[in-house]
Each structure stands twice: as structure tokens, then as C-alpha cells.
């Protein structure tokens, strides 16, 4: 059976995917996970999860390209640049 292992480096931090391993049962998985991801003191906790238990989602439909749902949908940098350009040419026009 394949297991996915997640490790937490320090208390309070999110668990991150560390890798996967093959083991005959949960006990072996736990012991191998410790060897792979905990032996050098690099983790303070592990989640060992049978791969079958993971629900994978990978289709994200966005037919109408509604990028305004996303933070990066608005490019503030571009808007600022354009605003500065407008303001700059307005100042130039006024000075004339």
C-alpha cells in the first residue's frame, strides 16, 4: 500500500507534503515514515496517510476567465503606471 507523508517542521507551522512510501500496513508505514522524515530531527510531527484516503481534485473550470476572483486578477502595478502617466501628461498640459 502507498502512503503519503506530511511533515511539520516546527510547532504551529502547516504540515507540508514530504514524500510517499510503500508499506505493508499502518505499523510499517509509521516506522518507515520515521526513518525517512524524522530520523534527523527535521520534523516535529508527521501525518502518515494512505494514498487511497486522499481526495484529489484537479479540474478547475473557468470558462469565462473570471480572473477578478483572484488576487492577481487586478494588476495594481499597471494601473498605477497608467495613472501616473495620465497625471504626468495632465501636469505637462497645465504648465503650458
Amino acid at each position, binding site marked *: 500500500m502507498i502512503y503519503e507523508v506530511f511533515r511539520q517542521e516546527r510547532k504551529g507551522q502547516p504540515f507540508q507534503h514530504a514524500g510517499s512510501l510503500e508499506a505493508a500496513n499502518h*505499523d510499517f508505514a509509521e*516506522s518507515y515514515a520515521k526513518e525517512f522524515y524524522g*530520523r534527523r530531527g527535521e520534523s516535529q510531527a508527521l501525518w502518515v496517510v494512505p494514498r487511497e484516503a486522499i481526495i484529489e481534485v484537479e479540474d478547475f473550470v473557468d470558462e469565462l476567465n473570471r480572473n477578478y476572483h483572484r488576487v492577481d486578477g487586478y494588476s495594481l502595478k499597471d494601473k498605477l503606471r497608467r495613472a501616473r502617466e495620465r497625471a504626468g501628461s495632465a501636469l505637462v498640459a497645465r504648465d503650458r
Partner: protein
Amino acid sequence: MNEQEARSLLEIADDELILGWRDSEWTGIAPFLEEDVAFSSIAQNEIGHARAIYELLSRERGTTADELAFDRSPGEYRSARIVELRLPEGERTVARHYLYEQADATRLERLKQSNDPAVAGLAAKIDREEAYHRMHAAMWFDRLEHEPRFTAALDDLQPLLDAGRDEHTSELQELWEEMTMVRRSQPVGTAW
């Protein structure tokens, strides 16, 4: 430490050194990667235990851990015959692992009760790592206990665990040659 404890410690150190060496022969060729890593780690631990015990003993004897580990003749080792065997069969290696860890637990338990704090402390430290080895051995036992090849290996190896330590297998001689080869060669300019 009393004489009995010193004798027992030397037996454990020799067992752990030689078993660690034998177990490490699986490194890179174990049946699958996860077990390769786990078993290699156990082998490393055993050699670490041997070193710690040799260091403790060498302080009492005014020598060094390396001298104790490598400068004796094969006949002077106090290892049990079961650890000396080269076991290229997986089921026999696991059977030895299981038998050895059980016997090892008993003698460590005794040393943990020592009046000498250095002995009791080291035994306790080693035992905390051995607890993991015992878990590993128990998992394999649970998986293989109904496999005829495994039970046959247990029956076959048990007598070697109980056999005395005065006589050794011919395989110890071969292992000793390998184990001490670099040290005996004394390349020019080396200081150990």
C-alpha cells in the same frame, strides 16, 4: 562496574559490532527501499551501541575503543555464534533479528539495574533505541509467523543463540579479516 558486568558489556559490544556489520550487508540490496533504509539504520545503531560500550570499557582498561574493537584475534571475541553468520536469506536475517532483540532486551534490563551509574545510564540509553528495533522485529514477526520458511529459520537459529561464546563459527574468521583489513594495513602516515 564489577567483573560480571564488564564481561556482560564486552559480550554485548561484540554482538552489536558483529551483528551491525552483518545487518549492513543488506544495505542497497534489501527487497525494497523502505526496508533497506530501516534495516540499515538499525545496523548503524548497533555499531553505535558497540562503540559506546567499547568506550566505556576502554576507559576502565586504559585502552581505546578501536583497540578493543579491532585489535583482538577472532578467538578473543565474546560474540554469540548467531550474530556471526552471514545470512543471505531474508527470512533467516529477520528470524535472527527477532531472536536477538528478545535476548538483548533481557540482558539490557539486568544492566539497567546496575549500581554503577555509568553502566546503568548507558544500558538505559541503548535500550531506548533497542525498543525501536524490537518494534521493527515484532512487526516482521507478525507478518511472517505463519510462513514455514520463517518458522524453520527460527528453529534453526535458536540453538546458536544459546550456544556458548568460547567457540566461534568459521564465518567470524572471514568477517574479522574484512572488518580489520584497513586497520591492519596501516597505510603510511595514518594515525588512528
